[in-house]
């Protein structure tokens, strides 16, 4: 990539910060609890007298004792040792849609922080309006579905709600014993298999055809039977390949008596382009922390927003926000509902941010986000095609929002595989890649998703770093093998993580095992 961008010098902050359990001195205080007024203590007596003797705590918990500036400093330093999306070109974390979370939405989200979910409906009309409008206006236009629910706290929990709704549907038809299988594909998110299994279903997994990179429609036809409860799949799959026969797929499942659930966690390239309804799905969900710009929070809180066709609305978790023309209400009176998957109404602050994001975009902006994410992906492909040792398996056809590449060739030729590469990339101030879910059907995989947040210059730079590491692998593999060199930390003894004599989930366990061993 001669004439490409010059790579900048980088080193991650190194604070060598002790574990907080080692910090502080006895007697230090980080915060003082509100005072108990004299009249109160006089009226009720000592606190200990209010607890049955055998339920009183005898030994205080061995929490650290630190003053406030020391706690703040410790966690500020830890925050510096964390490469948030806003600091870097973060699109190596594919399937995650690492898009910009607008700052104004953070400020707006704070306006609901002091609301209790069980307040009288009259006092939460504002947040109910946001929930209702985001579903019935935005997600309706985007998905073509009729009713919406924001209770699930993430994509996987949305799959759980969908699996429970399918279960309920078959239960009402008296077929839940017979219809005990959910069909998914190996390139669908693993939750599409794991979660229905927790809900009690057997899982049938379809594997891709080598030429098309996706399972054949014949494979689906062979998989459906009187045992089919439903299908739970992504499209496009993790590979970025869109199944053009998706409407045929939903028809096949419907004809077999099953229901169709659409994992739209990654719908970024589809906004205003193609919808769950026309593809024939009964239920779908969107990850508002991905496609709709709510921040990922270091791994949540999140929201898996469910949409269903009218005939399945009765199964949705309660409550549902309804509007009578004057006021918004929480409707609990839904006798066929699956009940609840999470307490209250879900992470409403996440929905609020998504609403603000979508309002900022409008119909044109949403479509623009989709188009640019797709163009960015295809542009990145051109850059990656020129990099030695990297290939695009599973057919040459065009991909939508992301592509699962492979460095199998690099590994064969240099010994540097994707795990090594991923430790080197952080030396350039680029977030480690998301490689692939398991199993690795594509060997030595990685899956960038350059969504609309990233400029052409960003993409050029990111590709230049990959090119640089490829050059290093071919010229000085030891440099890559021994990475990271510019990180906050050196390489971990990963074997300890799976060794019961050495693993430690708490400081207490660590100290005990260290003494022993």
């Amino acid at each position, binding site marked *: 990539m001669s004439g490409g961008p010059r790579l900048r010098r980088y080193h991650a902050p190194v604070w060598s910060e002790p*574990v907080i359990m080692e910090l502080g001195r006895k007697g230090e*205080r980080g*915060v003082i609890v509100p*005072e108990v007024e004299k009249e*109160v203590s006089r009226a*009720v007596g000592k606190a200990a007298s209010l607890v049955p003797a055998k*339920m*009183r705590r005898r030994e*205080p*918990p061995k*929490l650290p004792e*630190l003053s406030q500036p020391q706690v703040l400093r410790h*966690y500020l330093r*830890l925050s510096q040792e964390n*490469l*948030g*999306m*806003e600091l870097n070109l973060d699109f190596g974390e594919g399937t995650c849609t*690492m898009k910009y979370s607008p700052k104004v939405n953070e400020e707006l989200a704070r*306006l*609901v922080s*002091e609301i209790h*979910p*069980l307040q009288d409906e009259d*006092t939460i*009309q504002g947040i109910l309006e946001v929930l209702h409008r985001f579903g019935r*206006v935005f997600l309706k236009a985007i998905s073509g579905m009729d009713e919406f629910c924001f209770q699930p706290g993430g994509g*996987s929990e949305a799959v759980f709600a969908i699996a429970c709704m399918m279960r309920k549907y078959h239960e009402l038809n008296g077929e839940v014993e017979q219809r005990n299988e959910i069909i998914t594909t190996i390139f669908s998110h693993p939750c599409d298999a*794991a979660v229905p299994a927790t*809900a009690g279903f057997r899982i049938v997994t379809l594997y891709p055809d080598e030429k098309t990179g996706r399972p054949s429609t014949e494979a689906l036809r062979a998989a459906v039977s009187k045992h089919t409860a439903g299908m739970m799949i992504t499209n496009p799959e993790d590979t970025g390949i869109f199944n053009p026969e998706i*409407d045929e797929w939903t028809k096949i499942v419907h004809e077999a008596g099953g229901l169709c659930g659409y994992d739209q966690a990654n719908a970024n390239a589809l906004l205003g*382009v193609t919808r769950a309804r*026309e593809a024939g799905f009964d239920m779908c969900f969107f990850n508002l922390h991905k496609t709709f710009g709510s921040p990922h929070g*270091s791994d*949540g*809180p999140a929201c898996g927003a469910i949409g269903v066709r009218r005939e399945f609305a009765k199964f949705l978790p309660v409550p549902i926000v309804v509007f009578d023309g004057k006021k918004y209400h929480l409707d609990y009176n839904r006798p066929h509902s*699956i*009940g*609840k*998957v999470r*307490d209250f109404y879900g992470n409403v602050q996440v929905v*609020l941010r998504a609403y603000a994001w*979508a309002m900022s975009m*409008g119909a*044109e902006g949403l*479509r623009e986000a989709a188009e640019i994410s*797709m*163009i960015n992906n*295809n542009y990145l492909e051109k850059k990656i095609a020129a990099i030695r040792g990297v290939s695009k398996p599973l057919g040459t056809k065009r991909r939508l929002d992301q592509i699962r590449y492979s460095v199998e060739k690099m590994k064969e030729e240099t010994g540097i595989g994707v795990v090594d590469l991923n430790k080197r990339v952080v030396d350039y101030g680029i977030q*480690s890649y998301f490689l692939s879910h*398991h199993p690795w059907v594509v060997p030595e995989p990685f899956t960038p998703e350059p969504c609309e947040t990233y400029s*052409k210059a960003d993409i050029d730079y990111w590709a230049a770093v990959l090119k640089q590491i490829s050059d290093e692998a071919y010229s000085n593999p030891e440099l890559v093998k021994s990475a990271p060199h510019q990180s906050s*930390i050196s390489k971990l*003894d*990963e074997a*300890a993580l799976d060794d019961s004599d*050495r693993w430690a*989930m708490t*400081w207490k*366990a660590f100290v005990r095992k260290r003494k022993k061993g």
Partner: protein
Amino acid sequence: MERQHCVHPYIPNSVNDVKQEMLREIGAKDSEELYAEMIPERLRLRKRMSLPDALPSELDLRRHVERILTKNKTCSEHVSFLGGGCWQHFVPAVCDEIARRAEFLTAYSGEYTSDLGRFQSFFEFQSMIGELVGMEVACLTTYDWGAAAGNAIRMASRINGRRKVLVPEAISPSRLAILRNFAQPVQMPSHIKLETVKYDPETGMMNLDDLQRKASSRTACVYFENPSYLGVIEANGNAISEIVHDRGAECVVGVDPISLGVLAPPSDYGADIICGDVQPLGVHMNCGGGLGGFIASRDEMKYVGEYPTHLISIAQTQREGEYGFGYCRYDRTSYIAREKAKDWVGTGTALWTIAAANYLALMGPQGMKEVGEAILQKSHYAAKRLAEIRGVRILFPTFFKEFVVNFDKAKKSVPSVNKALLRQGAFGGKDLTNEFPELGRSALYAVTEVHSRDAIDRLVEAMRRVI
């Protein structure tokens, strides 16, 4: 499709020249041509979505959203006595400062090499919650208490291969609804039977005779809470766990962690698996969006191997004396094992794990003791003052921060009391009339360290006027 072209501030490549340059490099005329290669015509949306006009100007957007949200009233401007699974507690400013840092707020799933900060924070949370509950293993937080309890009872069931779980009758109906979904319908072969254990009508504690009757060699676990949904301190923890262990079953305890500076940790009275919610520990209510469930246990293979959630372990690095952190037994998780996993793990509530770590570090042992004492004294003060009103009774005498207020003798329904209180600027307790009909016209009141004596006295005066 007819579209006006706009450059959006969130989309750098919406600049037309750049877009054209990239399309040229790709070798396509426009995005339509690219989409046409992938998505068949019949599936493509041919019309513009029907949506309100966009507000790309930040100020316009802010005004629009603020206008909607002014229709809300908050617990800062009103005084609230609502609890029942989400509580108003004091949130130190440092918790917000750290949880709002872009480095934490916008990270996701990077490795320890780039995201050391979140891994270390998670480990520190686990360490501190472990101290609080008296266990050596704790996990990164999941969706909420209900999900944590659902995971915990399924862990117990997998450990001993039994499929019957005893839960208290005095449980939050919405938490029970979550557990029912985890337990599967009766027609399914791996169904877990949930059976409720009665509570004593005088004390609100678990009825031990009923537990004796129902616990058997087929019981996977008993799940109970301390304090219970009705606020009651379950003083018979030891007796319960003895009965449970006698049947070879697991003892699972749900706990409000903010009580543990003053209440005994469940490990003291025989808990094998502990779960609960971190929302009280430095997380705003967020209209219910502040919840985050945790699970803890002893450091034994039979428990560690059954967690569905992320477990962060400390480990040495190549550099002498340096610590690192990584996922323990990642092979358990659905990211590796798909349908053969221990249930599933997904995007949870990690930011609240970080906020709670800050909270516990700030509070320390003395802070946790004092906050527990303040809650006990203030809640009992409120209960005592309310009980002085003719027609108002407090049903169960031994409680931590929530208590049941009964209005039978006042002949007032809970909704009518609450409407009248609302007019005086107070959010009355949660209505229990339909959830627990045997308690008559009752409401669940929550009082915490945030309630001043003055606020409680005002509630009492308002209540006096209402009754």
